[in-house]
């Protein structure tokens, strides 16, 4: 995808604003860069690569994820280094990043501190297992396990474990507005490439109608079509519905359980996979 050339000044401003918002300082740490290399250069190369690979336009969202991705690589390199000073900075920034979420999920500050300090120790010890570009997600997973451990040993987590009881009671048939449906239908059309026969398109329409009748719930119908037919990711579906990803998960499994009891849908599926 052709992109406009990047303006270094504008990009640098965006990077500095994001680093300041996060309180991230390693972009100015010389030991993490080869001679002549800078964080700006890395972000610039990353955005250019992704514009081509992902066929995405160069916009703020892409720049934002490129900054996070490249910063993850910096944090990984810093924690892997032999310099205790740089390691200390990286681990403290890791704590600062995850602290609000840890505190929210634990019943008190002491428990949250205990979980996050254990998590950061484990991150340091097992850094070799981490893929550099997903450092923050990897750390969050360690933290999630430490919080669950607290939950198991002390049973005093407030929001770390989502159960059905924690989620707001939903209406039986929440309405989904037309715009959201339109994006899913559009994606389904994109996924159904031109090689599909008329018969296949009609069969899919038939299946969609049967699913709608079976589920009788707009939100669950939306989730099943968005995930299985439009191949949208859970985060995209959650954003479109304005709910937590955990709610998408619960609704998906409730929907699948219901479909198992709908002979018409099962028969149509059987015909279509044959």
């Amino acid at each position, binding site marked *: 995808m052709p992109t406009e050339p990047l303006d270094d000044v504008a990009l640098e401003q965006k990077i500095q604003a994001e680093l300041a*918002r996060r309180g991230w300082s390693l972009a100015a740490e010389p030991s993490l860069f080869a001679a002549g290399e800078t964080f700006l250069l890395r972000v610039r190369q990353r955005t250019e690569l*992704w514009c081509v690979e*992902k066929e*995405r336009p160069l916009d703020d*969202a892409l720049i934002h*994820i490129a900054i996070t*991705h490249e910063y993850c690589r910096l944090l990984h390199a810093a924690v892997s280094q032999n310099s*205790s000073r740089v390691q*200390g900075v990286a*681990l403290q920034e890791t*704590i600062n*990043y995850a602290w*609000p*979420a840890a505190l*929210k999920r634990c019943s008190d*500050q002491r428990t949250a*501190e205990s979980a996050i*300090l*254990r998590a*950061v*120790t*484990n991150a*340091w*010890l097992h850094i070799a297992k981490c*893929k550099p570009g*997903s450092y923050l*997600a*990897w750390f*969050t*997973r360690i933290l*999630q396990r430490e919080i669950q451990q607290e939950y198991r040993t002390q049973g005093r987590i407030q929001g770390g*474990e*989502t159960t059905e009881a924690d989620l707001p009671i939903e209406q039986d048939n929440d309405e989904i507005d037309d715009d959201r449906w339109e994006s899913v239908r559009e994606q389904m059309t994109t*996924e159904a*490439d031109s*090689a*599909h026969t008329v018969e*296949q398109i009609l069969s*899919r329409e038939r299946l969609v109608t049967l699913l709608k009748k079976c589920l009788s719930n707009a939100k669950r119908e939306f989730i*099943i079509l968005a995930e*299985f*037919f439009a*191949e949208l*990711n*859970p*985060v995209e579906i*959650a954003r479109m519905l304005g709910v*937590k990803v*955990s709610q*998408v*998960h619960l609704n998906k*499994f409730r929907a699948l359980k219901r479909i*198992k*009891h709908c002979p018409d849908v099962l028969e149509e*599926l*059987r*015909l*279509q*996979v*044959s």
Partner: protein
Amino acid sequence: MSESSSDLDRLRQALNAQPSSSANAAQQPIRRLARALLAENVETTTHARVLAEMPAMAAAELRGDRLAQLFPDAVAHMDVCESCSLEYAQLLDMLLEMETFVPASAAPPALSPTLQTALRIRDWVMRTAQQLLHRAQITYGDVNGMLDTLLEGLSEMTTMPAPVQAQQWALGYGGEDDETPLVMATWFATQTLATQATAVELQSLADGDALGERARQIAEETARQMKLAKPMRSRFVEDYVRIVLADPQVFVALGRPS
């Protein structure tokens, strides 16, 4: 409403009759939905593998990559495995929260002093422990792995462990051998020195030719507290001091920053 088992069986037969490789692109979403309903694939990809892939999946998802294309096995597993799917959903919810970055009501904790010390001394301890084991002609294995095991309990390691605690750690690592106590004694002696003194204080000891004596005192005290056997105790102390004095500047750098 009872589950329509015969309908599910017929669907399973139809699905298995045609291999996935021969299905066209239009059939793939249908087949994925069918597999999700039949709980297929839950055995082929283990929970542990999917759990290990979750960070990379979550990072890819937040970048806007298509999960079903990049991680087809894990996605198929999570279509049928409720626990993995919920675990993944909770991870994503945490990450999305962190992206919005709402400051917490309390300030984040600082790295513990124990961890700060551990960051400074770990490499030195590993190299030193290997030399000590080599000099004592003790066959040794993965000292790095042993230190990992020891350090996983770092938050509880604020003071020297009682002998019984040290014994438990040794047993946890693999038994009552000569290797474990020596590695642990090296760790705790160094931790004590690097916690008690700043780098400047260690430098001044080195300048006054008193670093060896200080290292000897701490090594003897550690060996005594850990109840090392007598021949091993004296050998440990002598070799430890010799290694400290072989390159005092490296050792001085392990002290606390001023």
